[in-house]
């Protein structure tokens, strides 16, 4: 499902060259979940952006669902992301003018893949069906993140990427949200990558990897 082959990525910061990936290869199969861990500044978010097609590689190959996304142009990447990838952010990033329902349905509608029965099923599973008509400003952090999870899954993508999805939540809410995310992603048959600092969060996922000095190591 997700393949990185000999990926190189570096950038300059005040004269120093920071290597995010050095000849980095990685593989995750369909329905698998993985935690991507590492110190601050190790490049976790950059690697996630590369997988999501939001950033480019210096060299190497990035394949999602057997598509070389590193070769796609901006318009093709946008369309690919719309149809195949679900994104979850630390700060939720909901559209403030839309209701919870419209927020959750947004990407599915953009992709032309909105299925009302699946939407109800997701809302029911995430325990947010009573929040459908509320606006983001009327929701708590945990509720907003559950709406963001629903949005990331509603178009039934092959790959879900979550960047510190519980970073803005308290511990109890974090556990609830991550459990919901993992079960919902597995139910939808999606591959899930979660960027996190937390070992506790990582423990909910089938694999854990640590990014450091441009390479990935599996954490047992």
């Amino acid at each position, binding site marked *: 499902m997700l393949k990185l082959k000999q990926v190189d990525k570096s950038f300059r910061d005040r004269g120093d060259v920071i290597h995010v990936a050095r000849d980095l290869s990685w593989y995750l199969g369909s329905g698998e979940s993985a935690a991507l861990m590492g110190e601050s500044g190790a490049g976790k978010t950059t690697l996630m952006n590369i997988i*999501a097609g*939001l950033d480019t590689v210096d060299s190497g190959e990035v394949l999602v669902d057997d598509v070389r996304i590193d070769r796609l142009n901006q318009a093709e990447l946008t369309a690919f*992301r719309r149809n195949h*990838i679900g994104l979850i952010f630390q700060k939720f*990033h909901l559209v*403030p003018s839309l209701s919870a329902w*419209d927020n959750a349905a947004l990407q599915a509608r953009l992709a032309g893949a909105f299925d009302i029965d699946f939407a109800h099923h997701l809302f029911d599973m995430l325990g947010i069906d009573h929040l459908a008509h509320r606006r983001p*400003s009327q929701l708590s952090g945990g509720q907003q993140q559950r709406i963001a999870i629903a949005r990331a899954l509603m178009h039934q993508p092959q790959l879900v990427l979550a960047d510190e999805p519980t970073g803005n939540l308290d511990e109890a809410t974090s556990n609830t949200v991550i459990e919901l995310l993992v079960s919902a992603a597995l139910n939808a048959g999606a591959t899930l990558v979660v960027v996190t600092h937390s070992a506790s969060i990582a423990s909910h996922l089938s694999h854990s990897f640590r990014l450091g000095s441009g390479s990935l190591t599996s954490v047992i």
Partner: protein
Amino acid sequence: MTRVTLVTLATTLAFYRQNPLQALFVLVGLVLGCGLYTSVAQINASAEASYAEADQILGVSAQWRITDRVSTEVAVSDYIRLRRAGFTRVYPVIEKRLASEDGALISIIATDLLALPFIGVGVGSGDGSAFENSPFGGDSWSRLTQPPYEAWVPSQTAARLAVTGGQQIRLREGKRLPPAVIRSQAQQRDQIFIDLGAALSIFETDRVSYLAAPPLTETEQRRFADQFGDRLMLSNQSKALNLAQLTQSLHTNLTALGLLSFVVGTFIVFNAVNFSLHARQQTLRVLRDLGAVRQAIVAAIAIESLVWAVTGALLGTLLAQPLSAALMPAVAATMQNIYGASVSSLPVFNTGLFWEALLLAFTGLILALVLPLLRATAISSDEFSARDKTLPSRHDFALAGVGLALLLLTYVCYPIASSVVQGFALLSLILFAGVALLPIIVLLVSALGRTVTRQYWLARWAFADVSLQFPHLRLAMMALLLTLIANIGVTSLVGSFRLALTEWLETRLSADFYVTAGGVEIESFTGQDWIRAAHRRTIAERSYAGRTITVVGIDVDAPDFGPDNIIDSTPDAFARWSVGDVGVDRVFANEQLRYLAGVEIGDTLELETELGLRPFEVLGFFHDYGNVNFSLHLPSERFEQLYASVEPQGWGIWVHQNKHAAAELGLSQLGLQPTQWVSQRDVRTLSLAIFDRTFAITGALNALTLLVAAVAIFSSLLAAYQFRRSEYALWRSLGMSWFGFFTVLGFPMFLITAVVMAVALPLGIVLSWLLIHKINVISFGWTMPVIVAAEPIVFLFVVVVLVVLAAFVLASTRQQAAVNKALKNLAGE
């Protein structure tokens, strides 16, 4: 405290290094606001300086004016008689307003240099030093007064007419002025100066417009009355209607447009300052946490404001120079055409205007700063951002209440307003009512749109985004609304005026030809198969309430004056006017007499006639657009009795259809020179061309205020986009195409613009109604029907949409790159 303030200042100013565009917008708002206001103030000051000189001719006082009791001009022989009788300080003046060969308006002034009482001493008195030191000293006067003569053309007039030194200006009727010399003297304004001898020869006359004199003693006045009172009339110019007073409405109008630009400029500043302070909220919080007291933060912002204000005022004053120089000729044309006032087309500058601009810049900045500053120093960042999303608020409803109250107040105050300033206060109430009502209308439309389109998620989203974009755009849109209301109001006023003038010209100039040779007898026209009708027109000039009043003798069956031309009259007035009465002469008066001199139907005016002082009963009024004088229409039969010695001015000739060529040939065969008859069609065209030039100033100021509003929209869009950039990045991260992106992004802007136009339309019409029925009546003395023509309004709206589109495209072009960049940071946020 000083150190803390300086550190705070250095820290807060760092924002502009990263966001130079915001700095540019603060400056643009201030410079445009101050610049437009200062240029208008400069124009007004220049015109007022000209009025102050109105009773001077080429630097010599012309406090007294001598005119003929019967004729419109004074015979040169009368002037000689006066000189011989000891009135040696009296000098002759010819003033003419003519059209050049290519239709440009020219003012000519001519006098006898040797008769000018320089610095109180006549040349003829023997003290030649004063004359030698005057602009006419040396051999200047001899070149001016001897063939081939010279025409002294002020440089600005030369530029307007595209005349160079040595060139001879050709007049419409074929005459040529002496060779031009580009130079001007004090109080010459835009007039071309030639010697009296040259003028008498060019215009083939032995009469002058009037005789002028410096202050006369009471003994001299009595002696004049005794010796010449039966033929000549002495009037004191300082007692005549004040030019400054007459032109007050135009200046108030210009000032209002200048202030409007200033208000719109303030909106731009407010937007920029608001955004810059909001963007620096975090910095200010950190500074406060690090020990910078609130006073130090306020002081730092105050210093920053001082720098902005001084820079804005300086650049604004600089901008005002070319701007007022560009606008001044249009103002001069307006003054000349509407009020008959000669105004220099060169603007004057005085330091007072700079201080005024500085004060204005400070006022604008303070107005723009108060709210953002209070927020920046008192409210937390989270509360601030939450505010933008809470819509509609109680504040919006309260504002709508204020708007309705202002409209009610306008309605209540309408009958009370009786001065130009009060009239303009009514207009401001309309403008501010519109501004106050706008937010609630936009939000209601947005809510309605969401409800109506609830089945369509994209439309629902686009409507919902209106409430997110509007807080950022509201000030710019309010500025646009103000501009549009004023624009529609003024455009409708000018359009109504133009249509009324056209209709008036159609009636008044309904004759196909106007023969200016008064000596032609009616017998000459009999038997000519091309003539449909021929009617004579005779005019006598008198004085009434300090103004010239023309008594016009009109044939009762002439097609250019009938019952339809009377706008207000007693029953059967036209019939009663036509037959006349033995005891009292019946007349129709122009509206100017009603509104400026308070004459009503049934009132009787007493005027000098050749049969002595006679009463004239006013039976009704007629429109007389653009006439600076009072006017009475009297049946020609009676006119010939009362003013027997007045020579007819000419004939109005109506010709049969398709007989124009035959008529021109016929007129030539009657022995008339081409200069002795004019085609009324040409006159109509020329009149409308002059009208359009007159109102060019309005068009120019309208365009400028629209430009300022466009800048306000552009700056607001940029600020809004910067503010919501991460949200926009999210849209893209979810896979939204650029097409969809710009559709959702652009829809709210165009919807709000549509609402602004919809609100501006009725309020603009109300404004034009007030301008015509209140301001116009108070200041000009005319009324006319309010005509709201669709074409100029549609054109204006198309321009607005294009302007908004341009602002949107410009702002959006910057968006693509910025959003792509923000996309990479989205996950890290």
